[in-house]
């Protein structure tokens, strides 16, 4: 397997807080990679660095051999890296279908948008296909703002998929979602993975991560602690320490 996305010793500080310190990670082509770690270990910051929302202080990010370390979010997306957000973000005051159409152009020139209509026939067809795929096709004409929390998660997944990215970064896809929907989302991810999409998933639901992922990376205090298969991770004592705060250093921090 070849490496699709690789993060090499990335550091990022916000003032005195070192959100990331020399963090490395790689996503193999066609894999589902899990990213776990306690709250505040830098998972979301790492996502922001990869997708261009934050500029790292040092280190590099490469996607299919192209360096994307300081690329803007639209550039990163155009190359084929899609993402969802931990707090779901959709366009509330336009319809569900229009939400899908925002994402379909991927790398169209900005002037082209002036001369073309909102949608072409083929874009409408594929937008509806993806909405049906996640199961909210019947809501296409509604305002996206009227969707429930779970439906918004599905919409966000659908409009990332409509642009056909090669790797999809999911930030807590199962967070705050009921059990039936969690299983549904897991099924969708597996189906998409069979079709060749790669995933990088941040998730706190261990069962979800362990069942789904080929490899898991554990982050702790802004750095990658260990990587391995789910069973290796489960039996690794370092991971338990990171989660339960077993090390001396953490005790000192807690006391202060």
């Amino acid at each position, binding site marked *: 397997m070849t490496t699709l996305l690789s993060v090499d010793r990335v550091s990022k500080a916000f003032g005195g807080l070192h959100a990331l310190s020399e963090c490395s990670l790689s996503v193999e082509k066609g894999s589902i990679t899990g990213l776990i770690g306690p709250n505040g270990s830098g998972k979301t910051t790492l996502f922001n660095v990869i997708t261009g929302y934050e500029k790292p202080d040092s280190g590099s990010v490469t996607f299919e051999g192209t360096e994307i370390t300081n690329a803007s979010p*639209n550039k990163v997306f155009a190359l084929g890296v899609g993402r969802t957000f931990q707090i779901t973000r*959709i*366009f509330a005051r336009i319809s569900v279908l*229009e939400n899908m159409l925002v*994402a379909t152009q991927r790398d*169209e020139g900005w002037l082209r*948008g002036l001369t073309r*209509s909102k949608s072409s026939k083929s874009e409408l067809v594929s937008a509806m296909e993806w909405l049906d795929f996640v199961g909210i096709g019947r809501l296409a004409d509604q305002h996206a703002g009227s969707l429930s929390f779970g439906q918004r998660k599905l919409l966000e997944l659908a409009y990332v998929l409509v642009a056909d990215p090669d790797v999809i970064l999911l930030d807590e896809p199962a967070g705050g979602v009921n059990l039936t929907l969690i299983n549904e989302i897991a099924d969708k991810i597996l189906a998409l993975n069979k079709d060749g999409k790669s995933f990088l998933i941040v998730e706190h639901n261990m069962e979800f991560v362990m069942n789904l992922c080929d490899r898991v990376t554990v982050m702790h205090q802004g750095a990658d602690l260990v990587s391995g298969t789910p069973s290796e991770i489960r039996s690794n004592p370092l991971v338990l320490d990171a989660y339960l705060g077993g090390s001396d250093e953490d005790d000192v921090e807690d006391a202060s």
Partner: protein
Amino acid sequence: MPRLRNVWWLVALGALVLFPLIETNPTYTTIGVFTLIYMGCATSWNMFSGYSGYINLGSAVFYGVGAYTMTLLSDHLNFAGNGDQFWLIPVGGLAAMIVAVPVGLVALRVRRHTFVVITIAIFFVFQLSAINFSFTGGTAGLQLPLIPWLETNFNKPFYYAALAIVVFATLLSMAVRRSRFGLQLLAIRDDEDRAAGLGVKVFAVKLTGFTMSAFAVGMGGALYALFLGQIYPQFVFNPIFDISIALMSIFGGLGTLTGPLLGALVLESMQQYLAIRFSNGAYYLIVFGSLFLLIVLFMPQGIVVYLGEWRSRSKARRVEGALVVAGEAS
């Protein structure tokens, strides 16, 4: 029913075309000219600020640049005052667009509320420049070549030129709303960062929209200068203009197509009428202000959105009523 809607557009256009032919009193056709200028400017303003959510409170910059372009060019190019200056109106619009590029490059670096403050600041820079530079004539203003038309027919060409600007701005706004570009503006309004993460080149889109919206506003300013025959910095770079344009759009319905047209039609014609009616200046402001407060209190999304919701509610009630009747009959 899109066809019925088209009929309404044609009826409205027909009424506007016929107005100066039926009502020939210059007092009222003058109100008509001002109202149409505001309708065009508000529609154009809404095409950027309404769609993208970036409330520009410095649109008088474009208006003033249009007015000064018209005045300076007619003076320096020695126009005779036979009406040829009407051809300078689009030039005024283009000048406003050229000015919009550097203004946008500065103002659009920041988001939302900061953007509003920056646009106000830039507006005052322009107003002070117009007052202090010598080529603008300073506070004494500038005169345009006199147009020696008879009073009875004087207003008509201005009226139809203003109507042409309104039609142009409306068609452009309509086209933008239907284009991918317009969808991107709406996406920026709802969540700019998310839009960037879906491949939208947000800065280029914002700057393009900002610059495009300057065109009709600049044309409005140019027409205004030509209509009055003289300009002063405090009247063409007027903070009241900035606020009026925004309020008219909000009053009618921000981000809707008909909202700014309706808002400007009601507010500007009423303001002009009340100003004449209560010749003692400030009374009309009280009526004006109260009406505005009522709208904001009871229809915060504007008249157009309110009426739309009211109609769909009453339709739902009718359907419900019909179901009850049908239930009783069976």
